[in-house]
């Protein structure tokens, strides 16, 4: 069985978010990056299937040179092969553009299962996964918190409101967009990291995928005009001072609320 895992490399969750010069994104120059948290759970799910002796796992990511690091981490964790779509022509793609790129890779590879995160920690659109499934004309589900396979069917629990789960059955090939907490994500072992250096690592261009002119800024249907911190309206009264002063203020408020 062949499993495709789509990864996105995103700014580290504690990275400083300074707005860039034209106000359309954050400054990416001097910050750390990491694999999108949701995608780590997707990768882990694929690797568990592989551990059960049943699959070949390849990872794909789109982006500049730095994305190679994320893919190598994934290889270190146990993925068999990596594909890096590294092409400036892909820059500025909207969700649909990204989905088209991943669909082109999928059409070359014909995976039985596609795992990816529900959304990215930076854009939070949760769009690429369902779009990718539509472009490939395969069923999908989102926010999976449990995945079970048997005989060409995948049964997923998907998270809905209030802790309830909706159970859905998908026929393979299918795409599963996972929720965080689906499993416990492994660390790359030293042995794994060493082995990763010898694993196949393919770099592809937009032209290689037959998508020249169909992705990137020019093809994007939506774009961010402006990004900014939220306006601080009537927000919290901030207590400042020494720990003792702050604590005194808190105790006073708690007394006032009648909760002491």
């Amino acid at each position, binding site marked *: 069985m062949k499993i495709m895992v789509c990864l996105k490399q995103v*700014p580290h969750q504690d990275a400083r978010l300074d707005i860039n010069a034209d106000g359309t994104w*954050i400054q990416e120059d001097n910050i750390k990056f990491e694999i999108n948290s949701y995608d780590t759970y997707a990768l882990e799910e694929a690797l568990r299937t592989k551990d059960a002796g049943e699959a070949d796992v390849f990872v794909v990511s789109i982006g500049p040179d730095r994305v190679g690091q994320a893919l190598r981490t994934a290889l270190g964790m146990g993925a068999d092969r990596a594909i890096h779509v590294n092409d400036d022509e892909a820059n500025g793609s*909207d*969700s*649909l553009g990204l989905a088209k790129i991943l669909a082109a890779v999928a059409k070359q590879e014909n995976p039985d299962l596609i795992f990816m995160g529900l959304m990215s920690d*930076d854009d*939070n*659109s*949760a*769009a690429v996964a*369902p*779009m990718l499934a*539509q472009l490939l004309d395969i*069923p*999908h*589900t*989102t*926010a999976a918190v449990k995945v079970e396979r048997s005989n060409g069917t995948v*049964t997923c*629990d998907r998270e*809905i*409101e*209030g*802790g*309830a*789960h*909706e*159970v*859905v*059955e*998908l026929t393979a090939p*299918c795409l599963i967009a996972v*929720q*965080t*907490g689906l499993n*416990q994500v492994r660390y790359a072992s030293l042995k794994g990291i060493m082995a990763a250096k010898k694993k196949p690592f393919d770099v592809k261009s937009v032209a290689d995928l037959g998508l020249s002119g169909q992705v990137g800024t020019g093809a*994007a*249907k*939506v774009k*961010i*005009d*402006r*990004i*900014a*911190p*939220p306006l601080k309206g009537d*927000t*919290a009264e901030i207590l*400042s001072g020494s*720990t*003792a002063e*702050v*604590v005194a203020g*808190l*105790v006073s*408020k*708690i007394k006032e*609320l009648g*909760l*002491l």
Partner: protein
Amino acid sequence: MSTVLIVTEIQNGSLREACYEVASLAQQIAAATGGSVKSLVMGQGVAALADEFSKKGGGDVFLAEGDALANHNAEAESKAIVAAVEASGADLVLIPSTPSGWDTAPRAAAALDAGFVSECFDISAEGGSITYKRRVFNGKLEATISASCDKVVASVQTGATTPFEGSSEGSVRKLDVSIGDLGTKFVEVKQAESKGVDLSKADVIVSGGRGVGTPEKFLEVIQPLADALGGAMGASRPVVDAGWLPHEYQVGSSGQVVQPKLYIACGISGAIQHLVGMKTSNYIIAINKDPDAPIFEVANLGVVADLLEIVPALTEALTAAKG
């Protein structure tokens, strides 16, 4: 001139309130652009709901009925949306961003080859062009989006607008959707098992987030404050995902929604999923090292400091004050 199509959702036999919230936006946009509002109702045996919505903000309603639409099914719903867009001539499709909405909307957008904007908290049509506003970086920044295409699908954050309370005129017409074979099958909904921790009854909840640092610190730092206030301990999602606390402590849209007299958020950034779970608390105190954390937008009182310094000191002071 925008023709706006509202995609509705039925839950427990009636249209979700979110549909009326979306109707508010749809009506505003139609009014601003000299356009019209139409709607799609999907389900089985729901003609009466379609009729009701046509009078309460939905305008002309396209009714798609069938077994495949009786329960949530992203594949089937996506096909119905495509058919409704064709039948209505809509150029803007609005759908509530609920677990069903976020499952279906992007798929439908791809099927329509449309632009897609996710979880908007505002859509405005001033000056002849439509702009969409949404949050990115887990609530830390706001993005203003514009589209340069014929059709846009936008999902709308629930609770971001007030429900439409006016009336509308429209007729209900049957929409034929050829669903075909589906690779997706709805099986059932499993309700959450109610376990030990019922946060809805607590007057005071002290919640910890990733900032607490380790599972041990929850027991050493957060639980004692909760105890000193006679309250309960809660947690944000990342804490539960990391396995530090079981799911029953989770406060948020996929955990428990709480409204205590006092909610103290310690080391919680304030991602929207968490805020949805606690922002209607009577009084909110937030303690976080990051002055830009979104939690401060809903807090009444804030402390920008290390919770590991403040919380133990607060617990001690409260214990002393109680005598």
